Structures are given as structure tokens and as C-alpha cells.
């Protein structure tokens, strides 16, 4: 069994990369490996939006990521700097910036770039999916 981490640079629904990453994530856990973490960076932070509302007959990417956390304990790490720039905030950050609402909720976590380095160093494989 190998420990995997994924790095996702792509926004949902604007490029195939986010869907490719989710499909590969499913292959990892189905294949008997552990997916320790997914790190969402650059436009990939939009995968963490709690307000994502695709049509019901389409794949719900945010729900797909959450399912990985619920079923396999995968950490869902969102770059805080990339998130703040793009309006992806949890309640703490919304309060800190005096904003009326938030759109990042558990199990997605706003974290620093150090968590990406940690995922690179402490897992057997890091696979990048970018637009």
C-alpha cells in the first residue's frame, strides 16, 4: 500500500483537470492505497466552495471530495492565500476581514503552503492535476 497526495490547480467545471483528479482519487482508494491529502491551489481552491450547485444530473465535484474525506479520511487542504484572493473563506476568515458570509466549511480546511510541503515529504507519491 502506498500513501498518495494530490495537488489540484484547476477550477471545477472550467477544465477537465479537477474531474480527472477526482477520478484518479477514486482509483487510488479502490486500488487499496491511501489518499492522505488533496491540496487545492491556485484556481483549484474553487473546488472547496460550499455554494457549488451544479445541475442534479451532473457530477458534484465538492460532494465528491467530501465523500473521500468521509469514507477514507482524506484531508482536504485549501491554500489560504489563493482562497482569500478568490473569495473562498471560512467563518474565521470572513470575520477577520469583516465580510458578511463564508463559503468554505469542514471538511475543507484553509491551510498554508507548508501543508503542501508536508504532503510532498510525508507521502510516497504526489500527483499534480492542472489546467
Amino acid at each position, binding site marked *: 500500500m502506498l500513501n*498518495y497526495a494530490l495537488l489540484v*490547480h484547476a477550477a471545477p467545471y472550467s477544465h*477537465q483537470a479537477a474531474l480527472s483528479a477526482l*477520478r484518479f482519487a477514486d482509483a487510488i482508494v479502490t*486500488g487499496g492505497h491511501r489518499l492522505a491529502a488533496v491540496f487545492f491551489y491556485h484556481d483549484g481552491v474553487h473546488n472547496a466552495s460550499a455554494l457549488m450547485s451544479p445541475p442534479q444530473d451532473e457530477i458534484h465535484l465538492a460532494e465528491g471530495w467530501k465523500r473521500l474525506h468521509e469514507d477514507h479520511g482524506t484531508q482536504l487542504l485549501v491554500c489560504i492565500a489563493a482562497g482569500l484572493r478568490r473569495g473562498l473563506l471560512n467563518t474565521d476568515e470572513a470575520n477577520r476581514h469583516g465580510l458578511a458570509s463564508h463559503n468554505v466549511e469542514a471538511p475543507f480546511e484553509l491551510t498554508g503552503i507548508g501543508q503542501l510541503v508536508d504532503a510532498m515529504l510525508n507521502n510516497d507519491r504526489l*500527483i*499534480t492535476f492542472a489546467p
Partner: protein
Amino acid sequence: MQLHLLNRSPQSTAVYRDLGEAFGADDQLLLIEDACYAALPAASGVIEAFGGRVSVLEEDLVSRGLAGRVSPAITVVDMKGFLALTETHERCVSWF
């Protein structure tokens, strides 16, 4: 020994050129997403540089209507095959 993941169509010539320069003797290339178009016989000139160590992802071929149109020199793999390539290669580099 590295696995290279490529998702750009052969029209992105600079990416293919850079990848060709970085491609080692024991490396393997997996074509995904729009890079599937590089698996067609018409694009064989682009793929020649990778010495027959090229695979393409079946799911992405099918979604583009390209199944069954792949050059004989290229191996078609499914998601399990993609996973297997990452198991056997310690490092995976993505080109985009």
C-alpha cells in the same frame, strides 16, 4: 525513472518540446485529457521522440470519440492502468 503526465493537445508544441528535452531513457509518458489527440496516427511525428514508452488513458479517448483510432505503438490503459504506472514510478511529473 519517472512517469510524465501530459494533458495538452499536440498543438501546444512548446510543452512537447520541453518534455522531449526532459524525457529520460527509462521514463514513461502517459497522455491524458487533450493529449489523447497525440495518440492518433496523424500525430506520430510528435510522439516519436518518446521511443515507444507512451500510454494513453482510455476514458479520455472514449470521451473524445477517439477509441480504436490510436497508433499501434501506443498502449491504451484504463484508470487502473494509470494507477499502476504511478505505483511503479516513484516520481510523477505533470506537464500542462
